[in-house]
């Protein structure tokens, strides 16, 4: 996988979430995502950066425009050093929230992307990596 653009963005305050979202959207356009794929990855970026902020106490995101030689795509990584996800199986199934929420952010993001990896360790933090590819053109 070739990395064409890579940026690290801090997630520390509420205003940082829209910044990550906007950057993801711009890179999706650069990678020739259609409107549906772009909305999907931008929404996932929003959900995962908010999780890092709200549940993880803040951290950072790495947003990348990548290529595998055939396709262009986006790789987004979200890292925090928060408490970790208590029950990762339940959190991934959806409908589970330790807040007052519906608990659809994590499970929903997983359905919006092509590749999804979570590493979480209690008391140490959480790292979520997602990749989405642009559909073939021509």
């Amino acid at each position, binding site marked *: 996988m070739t990395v064409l653009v890579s940026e690290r963005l801090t997630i520390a305050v*509420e*205003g940082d*979430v*829209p910044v990550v*979202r*906007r950057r993801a*959207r711009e890179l999706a356009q650069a990678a020739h995502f259609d*409107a*549906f794929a*772009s*909305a*999907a990855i*931008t*929404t996932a970026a*929003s*959900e995962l950066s*908010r999780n890092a902020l709200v549940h993880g106490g803040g951290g950072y995101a790495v947003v990348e425009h990548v290529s595998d030689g055939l396709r262009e795509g986006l790789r987004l990584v979200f890292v925090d050093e928060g408490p970790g996800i208590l029950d990762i199986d339940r959190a991934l199934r*959806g409908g589970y929230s330790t807040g007052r*929420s*519906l608990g*659809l*952010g994590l*499970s*929903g*993001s997983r*359905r*919006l992307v092509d590749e999804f990896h979570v590493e979480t360790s209690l008391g140490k933090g959480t790292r979520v990596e997602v990749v989405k590819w642009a559909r073939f053109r021509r």
Partner: protein
Amino acid sequence: MTPTIPILRVRGHLLVSVQGELGDDVVEQFQNDVLSAIERDRGRDGGLLVDISGLEVVDTYVARVLADTAAMARLMGRHTVVCGMRPEVAATLVQMGYMLDGVETALDVDDGLDRLGLPR
């Protein structure tokens, strides 16, 4: 530097058009503005139309704010309709399993005004 979202009165109905994005930093103000506009409009029985055709991204947070605002407006006695959701936004929300249950939706502003009973 908080942008305010204009709230228009169109023949007795309130019309809000959200453009660009509903940032995390403005949602609370958006909700308050809409509710105080309803309060100021006391005595009228028009509805509330929220046009989201300008929203390119609706995540679960924004969706919840829209649903909550609609529910609050309804509690204040306003017929509330959310209109203009873009196809890619609808697709994304459904994929995530977020159906905006309980929110009345319409295709566009025309369709929304029909729902509020405004004659064409």
